[in-house]
């Protein structure tokens, strides 16, 4: 019996020790949670940042944990309800993602740092637009601004007799038609990852509805079923999915779509600026590729920002901020130039003269754009995003008619408990 008691005590001690060890982050430890980026360049940039910080601050240990996108989101949620968690976490900055965390109190108010270090001057205007959008105070520090535009294969355009980059939505459609006439699918998309096809839907909404209405629809201030351009957008979207996308696409993901694009099976892709890294890794000849903004009447750039947030539960906010400071500082940003795409958030970072031509175009695009609009899955709260995915997917697969799609969206939004 005594042995049994001893065993029980030992067992409990083990469990307790396990708990304690899991919870404690020592005074000099920083836990950074990030997503696992597609390319090695980006992952290296993060790892290198940890190393550099440890070199500059001896005795510190920076632990970077990288997860797949969905797992990262779930892990943050999990940590929200427990004492385990990161000191710094990465998130897309829109309402549906970063905004959720801010509204749930997971992010630390960084107003004091912004004021003390005059951070607002460091970053580009578009990248800063989400800092004080939600809740009280200023949250998160931009570390990446991503633009999304149309990459196209010049050889395909040549074959179809397209001589100029489309500048209006109508011209884009004619180009797609011309490509179809010579047997080339205009776009490649991966349907299994909902956010990829969503880019087309978002841009069609922008093209058909215009900036103001589009924003109002996404903010759910306008009734989808009462706004005619919403239905019209779905009609246009269906036309695209029926005629101008490399088929079959619902069963493949974005990476496979990209492989097919590089394999010259389609003419265009709606991709982020960092796709340039993918093209570099694929070893393409950049003379064959070009870039233009998806044409819309108001000319906004489609894009989103990724921010580094300091957790409100962090025990080392000072140290965490120093890491972020170092990461976004002009020195390190220059060092990792191009790793996270063509558009450094730090305005002081200059591009090399001999940089990839597409990179240069990106910078021009951003500079010229009168504004930006964000991806649907970041504009909407989570449950609406899920429904949004379902609705346009159903339009694409022919399950519902475009004329019913806007009603379905409206019904769901109205029913939200």
């Amino acid at each position, binding site marked *: 019996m005594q042995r049994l008691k001893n065993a029980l005590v030992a067992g409990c001690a*083990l*469990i307790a020790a*396990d*708990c304690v060890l*899991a*919870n404690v982050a020592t005074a000099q430890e920083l836990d950074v949670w990030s997503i*696992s980026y*597609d390319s090695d360049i980006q992952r290296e940039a993060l790892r290198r940042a940890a190393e550099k910080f440890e070199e500059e601050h001896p005795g510190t240990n920076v632990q970077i*944990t*990288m*997860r*797949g996108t*969905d*797992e990262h989101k*779930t*892990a943050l949620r*999990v940590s929200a*309800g*427990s*004492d*385990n968690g990161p000191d710094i976490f990465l998130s897309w900055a829109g309402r549906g993602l970063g905004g959720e965390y801010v509204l749930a109190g997971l992010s630390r108010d960084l107003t004091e740092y912004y004021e003390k270090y005059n951070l607002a001057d460091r970053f580009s205007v578009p990248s800063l637009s989400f800092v004080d959008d939600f809740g009280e105070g200023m949250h998160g520090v931009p570390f990446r601004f991503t633009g999304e535009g149309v990459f196209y294969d010049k050889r395909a355009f040549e074959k179809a007799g397209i001589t100029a980059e489309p500048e209006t939505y109508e011209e884009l459609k004619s180009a797609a038609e011309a490509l179809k006439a010579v047997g080339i699918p205009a776009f490649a998309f991966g349907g299994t990852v909902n956010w990829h096809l969503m880019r087309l839907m978002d841009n069609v909404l922008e093209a058909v509805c215009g900036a103001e209405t589009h924003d109002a629809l996404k903010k759910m201030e306008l009734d989808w079923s009462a706004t005619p351009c919403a239905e019209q957008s779905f009609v246009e979207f269906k036309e695209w999915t029926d005629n101008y996308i490399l088929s079959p696409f619902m069963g493949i*993901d974005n*990476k*496979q779509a*990209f*492989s097919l694009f590089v*394999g010259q099976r389609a003419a265009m892709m709606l991709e982020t600026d960092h796709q340039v890294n993918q093209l570099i890794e694929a070893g393409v000849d950049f003379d064959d590729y070009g870039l233009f903004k998806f044409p819309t009447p108001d000319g906004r750039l489609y894009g989103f920002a990724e921010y580094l947030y300091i957790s409100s539960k962090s025990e080392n906010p000072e140290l965490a901020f120093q890491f972020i400071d170092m990461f976004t500082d002009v020195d390190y940003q220059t060092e990792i130039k191009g790793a996270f795409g063509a558009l450094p958030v730090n305005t002081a970072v200059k591009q090399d003269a001999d940089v990839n031509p597409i990179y240069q175009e990106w910078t021009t695009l951003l500079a010229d754009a009168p504004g930006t609009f964000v991806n649907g899955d970041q504009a909407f709260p989570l449950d609406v995003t899920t429904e949004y995915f379902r609705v346009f997917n159903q339009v694409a697969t022919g399950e519902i008619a475009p004329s019913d799609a806007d009603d379905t969206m409206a019904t769901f939004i109205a029913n939200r408990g």
Partner: protein
Amino acid sequence: MSLTKATAPISDKRVPGRRYDPVLVALWIALVAIAAIWIAPFVFILFTSLKSNAEVMVSSAFALPTSVHWPNFEGAWRNGDFASTLLNSTIISFVKVPLGLLISAMAAYALARIQLRRRKALLLFILFGAMIPFQVMLAPLFTLVNQLGLIDTYVGIILPYLAFGAPYQVFILHGFFSAVPKELSEAALIDGASHFTIFRRIFLPISLPVLAALLILDFVNTWNEFAMALVILQDSSMWTLPLGLMSFQGQFSSDYGQMNAAIVMTVLPAIIIYLIFQRYFVSGLTAGAVKA
């Protein structure tokens, strides 16, 4: 002749001098053809894992690889963090399986051999758990483990595994123990042995075959488990083999060679275990069938 056939042990050997029944020949051909279809996926996966990505895109499905493209396996091992996931799966399985079997056997013995009021009800209560899909409880399970601070720990995943693995084992072992002749334990009881001793010295040794079968079955089930691990092991350094594969699929789906190499490395341990311990799988399953 036919009578001896009826009582002869069923074996794989052909009875010499037997006339070939055309129906049986046709049957055999059909079975082999179906078996070929059944094994085709494995062949396809294996072949793809040995080809480079470029080769995959141009060669046909069952074309033999021109050469073995080892970088697929190296890349998959590295990118899928197989060293870590393999270790985690091993630790979790090797701790949970024997432990689970032990506590199930203890409970089964108590329910089969010790006079208790309502022991039938207790057995039913435990058996109930074998029928309920734990998938409906993933969210509350997560909440519970989280509240206990055991997310991302071995303890946190092993305890629920024990809870859901016990019912079936208790059920099987209860049936087995109930069938043990009473005289065996009665003599020992009269001599003053405690139930612990009887359990340890009499029942465990004689139930070794059943235990072995249950051990193998449980090992494979634990090794392959996905949904609970998905919910409880959030940190990628704690992932088990199935979680690693799923994550790999999400990240490297377009690298077909590596993807298939990852599949091969994930299923290989189970296949090896199966080929070695074949008969235990069958006897473990049939023990359940016969009992019920």
